[in-house]
């Protein structure tokens, strides 16, 4: 992927245009523009409190910005509620895991299939014929595509609330994948994981981005610079609501303002490697 900005309009999956977001008098985002192209991993970095998570919440509809437009596949989605955006193919994971603690791993991932299933109250209450068939079909998809990919076979029947943090993150990713999204927002997928888990998670992200059957475009919010620079096609730098640069990892690393605001003078980002 090159740093050029002259891409075909068709290639742009998500576009944020001049987004302004205020909480009272606090300006969380002022005039942010973001273009996410199909098939890329687009990272968003910035110091704590820069507004990264606010930006993600705006993309999937938990917040609605006071000014500016959000386009998804050239369609303006400002007014759509989060569940409608999920139906369009936007899925996400959260910074602090927001799994359904009382449900088993399998049920969490099954829930991710919600928009692809059709059974209602009457179908569900008898659970024969169409509903049972549907459940079995989706179970096959979950087992073969997601549980196998994320290597969580052994815990599939465990309640998620009882699992360690690293596995909960994995389940959350699995749940987001079950939606079969086109755009996946990963809000700090590596926070709080140990080195091995970080490597696993990075591998999963690459796989869902590159594998033929997934080909998911990712928006990645992350503080681990080593991983960000390795995985990303483009990096977007945010500093207290203001966009600094949106470019390739090389451009970002050499940008004086980014170094001043976030990366620091030394090769801080290399320490975790």
């Amino acid at each position, binding site marked *: 992927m090159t740093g050029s900005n002259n891409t075909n309009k068709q290639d742009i999956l998500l576009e944020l245009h001049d987004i302004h977001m205020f909480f009272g008098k606090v300006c969380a985002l002022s005039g942010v523009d973001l273009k996410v192209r199909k098939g890329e991993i687009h990272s968003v970095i910035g110091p704590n409190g820069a507004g990264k998570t606010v930006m993600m919440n705006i993309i999937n509809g938990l917040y609605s910005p006071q000014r500016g437009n959000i386009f998804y596949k050239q369609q303006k989605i400002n007014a759509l509620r989060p569940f409608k955006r999920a139906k369009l193919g936007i899925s996400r994971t959260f910074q602090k895991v927001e799994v359904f603690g009382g449900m088993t791993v399998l049920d969490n991932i099954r829930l991710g299939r919600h928009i692809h299933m059709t059974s209602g109250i009457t179908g*569900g209450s008898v659970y024969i014929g169409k509903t049972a068939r549907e459940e079995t079909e989706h179970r096959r998809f979950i087992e073969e595509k997601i549980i196998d990919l994320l290597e969580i076979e052994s815990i599939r029947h465990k309640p998620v609330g009882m699992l360690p943090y690293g596995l909960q993150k994995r389940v959350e990713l699995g749940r987001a994948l079950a939606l079969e999204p086109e755009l996946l927002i990963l809000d700090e997928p590596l926070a709080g994981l140990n080195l091995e888990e970080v490597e696993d998670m990075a591998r999963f992200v690459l796989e869902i981005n590159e594998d033929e059957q997934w080909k998911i475009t990712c928006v990645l919010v992350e503080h681990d610079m080593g991983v960000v620079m390795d995985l990303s096609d483009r990096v977007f730098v945010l500093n207290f609501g203001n966009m600094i640069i949106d470019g390739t990892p090389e451009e970002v690393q050499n940008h004086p303002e980014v170094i001043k605001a976030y990366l620091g003078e030394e090769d801080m980002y290399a320490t975790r490697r």
Partner: protein
Amino acid sequence: MSTTWLPCGVYHQDYIHDQGWWQTRFIKTKMILLFAILFIVIPEFADAYSLSVCNQIGYTILGALGVQLLIGFCGQITLGHAAFLAVGAYTSTLLILDFPWPKFMMDLGIAYPVSILIAAFVAGFWSVLFGLPSARVKGFYLILTTMAAQFITVNFLITGYVSQIGGRGQAFSLPPGTIKVGPWIIDSDIKVYFMMLVLVIGCVIIVANLIRSRVGRAWIAIRDNDISAEVMGINVVKYKFSAFFVAGFIGGIAGAFWISNLAAISPEHFPWFWSLWLVGVILIGGVGSIHGTIFGSIFMVVVMEALQLFVMQFVDTSWGEKLFTDFLFLKEAAFGLAICVFMIFEPKGIAYRWWQMKNYFNLWPFSY
């Protein structure tokens, strides 16, 4: 659902079996035995008193199922469920008394079953009406709005207006022979018992199936984390309403069923305390578990009956007589005490103990 471990050597080769209810031959035998006891042994050997206790348990299960669905599975705390039981009971009664049923429907005994169904729908929609605030408020505030259901429905509408229909005064009595299901006129405890069994088993199957399918998962997701539920594509408001509908629906069935036992209803049968009682039943049985609803109902009814029998031993003494006349207060005190004890010593309820026991015996005697 299958959070219990399979015994050693049992494994599934397809998903249908893995998602099944009764997964091993042992469980199948156990369940068939249970049904044999319910349908043959109890009706054969139980006396009238035990049967009436069983009916009481069945009624409590039917009432508490809706509460369990709302509180335990959808996380919408409700303290006005008796209102929907009352709506069901009154709808069914009024339909039987005042609706001009064609003669063949009365003769074939379809009128009462149809009235139960209509009562269930009416109670369901009535429940959605009081579930509307759940779109905006949750937690403590929702409790207060559901309490409004109780006071508006029972204390205001039913006592003040519905009971006055036909100028019968406070209580509606159902003439003998009007409660007829198919060829059977429901006029004895044993017939009520069979009807109760069918309804309880039917409703338990409905709720259990819902919980393991798409709708139920959406409810549980809303309970556990409503924000991420919405992000995962669930229309939270719609599913909250559907939970209120199903809970009201089952409540309506419960109310409409209970008139067959009472043969007369008045607003006093559906006090606010009964709403609270149903919540207590699921707290003791186990929140978020269908087993819990059943265990809780059995526990509460049996303990209260035992307490009554115990007090009756001393009815000859002066203090015993006083205690017996004040039994209602004693019952309330015992209810409070039971909830306190369970909250402190077993906050997950009887169902959790049952689950632990089952798992223990699955691994027994080699628990390593």
